[in-house]
């Protein structure tokens, strides 16, 4: 006869998992990045000493890093949610157009134009977020379609308002931003370091975004939403509002990136931002930000942008062509993605966060 008696009340031992170990310090992506950057700098400067030439290389490189770090942050802002913003190029272009427009037609001061760019960017980002939350369509699709739509819009706007392709207006201060570094400003006998003037703008953004996600309530709630949207909703987080805010932030940073690039190039053109899409993913991914959402690394993104720029500058000096650069950058992204996957698998096995 089969046993009908209930089990004895002996409880099984609690299934404790092993104490989690953090990843060894050398597997931390940030440390790896610093090492690779340092290695590349040594490599390039030994092959081409002009790599270390301040005016020729180091200064323009900083200006580029500034732009691409902000571009990376623009994508990071939505990666926090586990979303993507595929309209980064056109959001930047549209915001830059707005700035160029007010410079050209209204002659506003430099910083007002910047504010306009930021505002337009934030607005279009927020619209993107609103479409996502109200239709329930995923961010990938919405921003992809948005990028298509904005593509035509931007060309049209430039065609109507800028006689074709670009604003060539030069608001006061633009030339300084473009050509000067802090070393051109001296107080008495002490001159500043050879840091281009666009860098502080990027620095402010970097610190602000870093603090936002690390410390602010809204930033953390965004990360929680990215971690588990259902748990976030049930914990009282206003999920729809946070999604709109994250996308708005992304748009704002696109605006800043577009404006900075326009400053660097000295012109506002319809094709501005075209090159932003791949780097916008590359920097955060290299820096260890997960595509799945819930965790971001601002420092990693900056380091990722630095690495990409160092590679580009170095190869440039070694006289690689643009197309060869493309091949390399694309390959770097693929390698980074594969390594990210490896890291993920490792982290899962050890039970820690990647």
């Amino acid at each position: 006869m089969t046993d009908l008696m209930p089990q004895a009340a002996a409880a099984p031992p609690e299934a404790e998992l092993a104490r989690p170990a953090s990843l060894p310090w050398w597997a931390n992506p940030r440390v790896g990045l610093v090492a690779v950057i340092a290695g590349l700098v040594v490599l390039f400067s030994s092959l081409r000493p002009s790599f270390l030439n301040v005016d020729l290389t180091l200064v323009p490189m900083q200006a580029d890093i500034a732009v691409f770090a902000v571009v990376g942050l623009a994508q990071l802002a939505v990666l926090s949610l586990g979303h993507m913003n595929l309209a980064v190029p056109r959001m930047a272009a549209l915001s830059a157009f707005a700035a160029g427009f007010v410079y050209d037609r209204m002659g506003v001061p430099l910083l007002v134009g910047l504010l306009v760019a930021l505002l337009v960017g934030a607005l279009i980002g927020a619209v993107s977020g609103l479409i996502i939350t109200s239709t329930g369509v995923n961010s990938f699709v919405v921003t992809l379609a948005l990028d298509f739509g904005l593509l035509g819009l931007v060309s049209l706007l430039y065609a109507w308002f800028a006689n074709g392709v670009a604003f060539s207006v030069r608001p006061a201060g633009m030339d300084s931003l473009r050509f000067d570094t802090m070393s051109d400003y001296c107080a008495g006998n002490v001159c500043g370091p050879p840091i281009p003037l666009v860098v502080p703008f990027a620095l402010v953004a970097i610190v602000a975004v870093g603090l936002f996600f690390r410390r602010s309530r809204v930033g953390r709630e965004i990360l929680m939403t990215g971690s588990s949207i259902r748990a976030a909703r049930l914990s009282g987080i206003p999920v729809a509002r946070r999604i709109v805010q994250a996308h708005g932030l992304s748009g704002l940073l696109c605006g800043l990136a577009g404006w900075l690039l326009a400053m660097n190039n000295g012109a506002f053109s319809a094709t501005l931002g075209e090159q932003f899409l791949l780097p916008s993913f590359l920097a955060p991914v290299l820096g260890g930000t997960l595509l799945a959402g819930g965790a971001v690394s601002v420092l990693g993104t900056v380091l990722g942008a630095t690495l990409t720029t160092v590679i580009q500058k170095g190869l440039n000096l070694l006289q690689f062509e643009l197309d060869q650069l493309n091949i390399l950058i694309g390959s770097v992204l693929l390698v980074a993605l594969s390594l990210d996957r490896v890291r993920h698998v490792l982290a899962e096995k050890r039970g820690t966060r990647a």
Partner: protein
Amino acid sequence: MRLRASGLVKVFPGVRALDGVNFELRPGTVHALLGENGAGKSTLIKVLTGVHRSDGGTVEVAADEGDWTEVGFAHPHASREAGIGVVHQERNLVPAFSVAENIALQQLPSKRGVVDRAAVRRIAADCLAQLDLELDLDQPVSRLSVAQMQLVEIAKALATDSRVLFLDEPTSSLTPDEADRLYTVVARLRDRGCCVVLVSHKLEEVFAIADTVTVLRDGRSVCEGASLSGLTRGEVVDLMVGRSFADLEPDTSRVPDRSGVPALELDRVATDGGHTDVSLTVHPGEIVGLYGLVGAGRSELARALLGLDKIVSGDVRVRGKAVSISSVGEALHRHRIGYVTENRKEEGVFLEQTISRNVAVTVWRRLARLGMLRDRAEDSLLDTYVEKLGIRVSGPRQLAGQLSGGNQQKVSLAKWLAADCSILVIDEPTVGIDVRTKAAFHNLIAELAADGLAILLITSDLPEMVTLADRILVMHDHRITGEVDNAAHSYEVASKQVVRLMHAESAA
């Protein structure tokens, strides 16, 4: 074909879903597999049908008269080829494909790489005929009703010539007539020498068509292959929920004070989800239980209360004042209502976030200075609750996903306590949690009530319900069908009354 599992073990992070299950199937039987939510039934089926790999124990098959050989199913179609068919609980149909193609999908007939349409239709028509069902073979399944989809799933399982067929809640969306037709098919299969394994929460159904029963509890088989004719309904329920609880001393020391304004009151509430005329009150210090089967609408009621679903008529009053709640945030911050969800892993905790964030997430608003937060404030909050709830953690930065089920549940609860909620809706608090932690949880909940919280307890665990609830409301088909006073917390008395109310309502 005979099938036998011995000492089967399956471990997921945080929980031993199967902890030494023994299970034997004989041909020509209808074998019921019973157990509460979280007991391991779905996991057992998934292991036996190749969806999961087991972590221990053996599975053996034998021809009707032959010897046992050990098998391991690495993939669903391996088990299918071994002659095991399954209809899972969740729908697994390809929406754009026709009825016929979905039915034949597992072994799509083809000639030299081209789909043999005539054969597909033949197979589908044959299976539908077995179910006495008429459906347009060419219609895409996306346009079928839920009931029709379930029938197509069953037809799909019939398409592969299975000697063992697992049916997981097969009649959950069917009308009584459709269910009857299914029972006929089951009987026919049994007569043909198959073994049909039925997983069902409907005891009437089980007693009507099954002849053998295996009961799982906490991942173990507490009753293996017993003949159903020798058991009463009550005995089966006891096995499912564990008589050890019925032996516990009922704690009648807590007497809720019902004289004041109720903390929460629902007055003839109807919702978008189908609830009608739902009225209940919960006083501070009282534990009111909502008992019912899966699908009765209890969790849905809680969600409507939190603003996740629309309340179309009736009043909700919090501390005497009529309110209209439109979001969880509003329920939490304005009315101090918390909801400990039944779906711990996907809704209760943030698996990839640290424990301190998990606990503090509901109070960030309060902790923030100028919108900014300090880790220190979070950590001290965590310390308070780690201590109070006895959560075993290795540090505040530990990820919630690494904790055991019981500790995760404590974290899930802690965030509402941290938010100083005065009304708590607790949904299935001890599913998938080991016995010792269960008891600790019960003490905890009783303590919370003693401290003055108003608690609405939703659980399918009858002994748990009787231990904790001061009044038990029975819910069926989105309506409250009766109330049982449980001041004495006596399992003998209350369980009979509850079961009687349940049977008076549920159709065969």
